[in-house]
């Protein structure tokens, strides 16, 4: 490889490398504690909401660096309504559907102002942040509403038993979890190489074999590390299922569908997109309405995990999601960013959180570090853009 190729490769994979370095750093600092199965499980369970919100936030950021500040409040409000409905005896599935519908309605409400009236997203969602935080307090009357429905907690990742039961009953090792890991790896390798063979047969351009193999090795290793760790604890947390579902669906939407393409196009050059006959208002509407929907899903997971709803839940969630997106390579100008990138960003934030907690570093100092990482990531984005032009 020539020097420029190496540089290019480094630029593309910076965040993965940084993630690995940070992992190694904390493993060293904590004497390997961060790698123990319980901590790995916590990494996923504690950050489930970040993965989901960051995925939705990515769509908003793609439209031109716009963010949604209201997600934390929407998480709290939908959670509060759901907890009250269940406490009132409503069937848990119905309650979940109602929560998602409310989230979608809130999203659509804000999206209308943003897309059709052209109120700047920052203002609209700042208003939403205040409105729904206030409403959460109002509906909960300032109190905590606990959730007793055990099935709900199990399915959406709360409590000690929110893991997928292992039908094989392995002693100290969850066999199902291992199997899932192996199947995921096999599927991944199969699709990568099938696509490659297809493209070669049709004479299309393909990436070099070494880079594909290298990437596959890294991904397989990461997946296996995670599943082995999980299986040595209690198995697959149910929250992971929801996160995985959201990631798969949105990775597909952004990379394969026309709507996904429109999101990137609007962020890349809105005027050109409009002149290409694409309804840019609809694209904005989709991004923000969808954000409301995903915030509601994050709300479901949050109240399940906490087994209650409180007026303070979701505070600062929007910042975690926004941070994950920018660290994961989304451009502050829009049009650039991928779901896998955002996942890496979210994991990086999670690892930093977890590592510092294990090390016993003060909460407030953790914020300082996270802020520094976020600034560094965006500075990197801006500088690399400047080099391009």
């Amino acid at each position: 490889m020539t020097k420029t190729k190496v540089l290019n490769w480094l630029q593309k994979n910076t965040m993965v490398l940084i993630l690995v370095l940070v992992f190694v750093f904390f493993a060293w600092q904590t004497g390997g504690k961060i790698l123990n199965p319980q901590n790995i499980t916590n990494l996923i369970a504690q950050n489930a909401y970040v993965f989901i919100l960051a995925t939705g936030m990515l769509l908003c950021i793609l439209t031109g660096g716009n963010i949604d500040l209201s997600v934390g409040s929407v998480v709290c409000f939908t959670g509060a309504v759901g907890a009250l409905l269940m406490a009132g005896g409503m069937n848990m599935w119905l309650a979940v559907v109602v929560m998602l519908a409310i989230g979608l309605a809130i999203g659509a409400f804000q999206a209308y102002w943003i897309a059709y009236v052209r109120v700047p997203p920052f203002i609209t969602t700042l208003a939403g942040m205040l409105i729904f935080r206030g409403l959460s307090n109002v509906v909960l009357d300032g109190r905590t509403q606990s959730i007793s429905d055990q099935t709900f907690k199990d399915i959406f990742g709360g409590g000690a038993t929110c893991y997928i039961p292992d039908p094989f009953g392995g002693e100290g090792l969850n066999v199902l979890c291992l199997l899932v890991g192996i199947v995921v790896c096999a599927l991944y390798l199969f699709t990568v190489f099938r696509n490659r063979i297809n493209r070669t047969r049709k004479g299309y351009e393909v990436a070099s074999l070494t880079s594909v193999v290298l990437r596959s090795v890294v991904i397989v290793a990461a997946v296996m590390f995670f599943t082995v760790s999980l299986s040595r604890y209690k198995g697959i947390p149910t929250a992971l299922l929801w996160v995985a579902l959201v990631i798969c669906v949105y990775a597909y939407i952004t990379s394969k569908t026309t709507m996904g393409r429109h999101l990137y196009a609007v962020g890349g050059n809105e005027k050109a997109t409009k002149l290409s006959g694409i309804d840019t208002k609809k694209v904005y509407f989709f991004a923000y309405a969808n954000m409301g929907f995903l915030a509601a899903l994050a709300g479901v997971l949050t109240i399940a995990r906490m087994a209650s709803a409180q007026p303070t839940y979701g505070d600062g969630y929007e910042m975690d999601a926004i941070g994950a997106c920018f660290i994961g390579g989304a451009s502050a100008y829009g049009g650039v960013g991928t779901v896998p990138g955002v996942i890496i960003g979210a994991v990086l934030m999670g690892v930093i959180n977890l590592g510092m907690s294990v090390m016993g570093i003060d909460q407030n100092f953790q914020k300082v570090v996270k802020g520094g990482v976020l600034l560094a990531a965006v500075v990197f984005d801006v500088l690399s853009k400047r080099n391009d032009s």
Partner: protein
Amino acid sequence: MRNITKLFPGVRALDDVNLQVKKGTIHALVGENGAGKSTLMNVLSGIYPFGSYTGDIVYEGEVCKFAKITDSEAKGIVIIHQELALVPYMTIGENMFLGNEQGKSFSIDWDTTYAKADQYLKVVGLAESSRTLIKDIGVGKQQLVEIAKALAKNARLLILDEPTSSLNESDSKALLDLLLRFKSEGMTCIIISHKLNEVSYVADDITVIRDGKTIETMHKGVDDISEDRIIRGMVGREIADRFPARSGVDIGEVCMEVKDWTVYHPIYREKKVVDSVSMYVRKGEVVGISGLMGAGRTELAMSLFGHSYGHGAHGSLILNGKEVKLKNEKDAIHHGLAYVTEDRKGNGLILSNPIRVNTTLANLEGVSARGVVDQDKEYAVADDYRQKLRTKCTGVEQNVGNLSGGNQQKVLLAKWMFTDPDILILDEPTRGIDVGAKYEIYCIINELVASGKSVIMISSELPEVLGMSDRIYVMNEGRIVGEFQQKDASQESIMACILKSTNN
């Protein structure tokens, strides 16, 4: 100014230009769009700093090296741009001393500011209080504020870039008389203008710039400075064999007709940008639209393309014998229209995306089923156009931002060809690209009409319009002011048609 040469990426904007301006005179610069007049003035005023050009600026016997605008202003050289640079929600006084605040930097002396402002307003003959907001006065008065602002900087050499382009006749006359008065008080002026009647009215010397070179300087009272003489200087260039011959194209029946098309400015809603334009296009025909910048050509094209520009556009658009009302751009595409923008970086392409994505953007349905994009098919389409149009790139996954101008233009053309239009509106299709790539674009235009499509080509380059069009419309100030068959048209006749229709 001696031997000024200024290079832009891929273009030699100024080539060894010499310009001599005598103290206490009004010197006019004339030339076609893109001839380099504004670039030259930007060099003089320090917008392009010393070092970014070669050659010397000699002012009052001294070689000047301006690093920034304030350096030239300190010498008394002040430029007033064509686009007014005033802040609408500030008062006249605040605008006048913006960047030149009176008093101390931590405490502005507003009394002095407004007193001085009123004084300068009196000099330029503007009867407004200096506390009036800029947005509340008309464009003519704003132009006077700009001049007062220049005076407040102690201007001794005033550069005006098309000062009258947005003024009506009486305001223009007043402005020119003001310049004459300043001249009698010893001020030096350089004025850039397309309006030759004004040039002959005020200028002592006239310099013609063409293709980045000074062609000639004429002196009032010594040389013939009639409009015809100036026009000859501006266009005097041969149409060489730069255009591929078109053969075997049958021009068919009328496929598009526009009647009484009027468009208003999107912000200044009483201003007509396009004024009852009527035109038609035949199948297989290349129709050129010529005119100066700001003549309303782009606005006409964009408003026809699904109302993508302007406000309250009305008139009738008839496609293939049926009148259609296009709701938006998508509708226009469905009706077989394509608009290839003049601003390919700003309005045409997504520079951060690969060729493949840009090629299919306007017709994503063509490569997708039920909302899912077939990326293999998309690749095939993009690669096909790459080969057909001979786009030079490392592959269709290359980002468009890394291509040269000519190749970007080809990607843009491919994007619109993929929508399978009947009528392509090409707005400045060869702007900023080199001669070789231009020839290739002309070949593509010929292939398009040979396959039965029609092309409307908007161009500011007269040789291009003359060389490529079957028929030419001339636009000026929002109106169609002339129509020529190819055989009847010449650079002189078109230029004369534009200039003589101005301001009446």
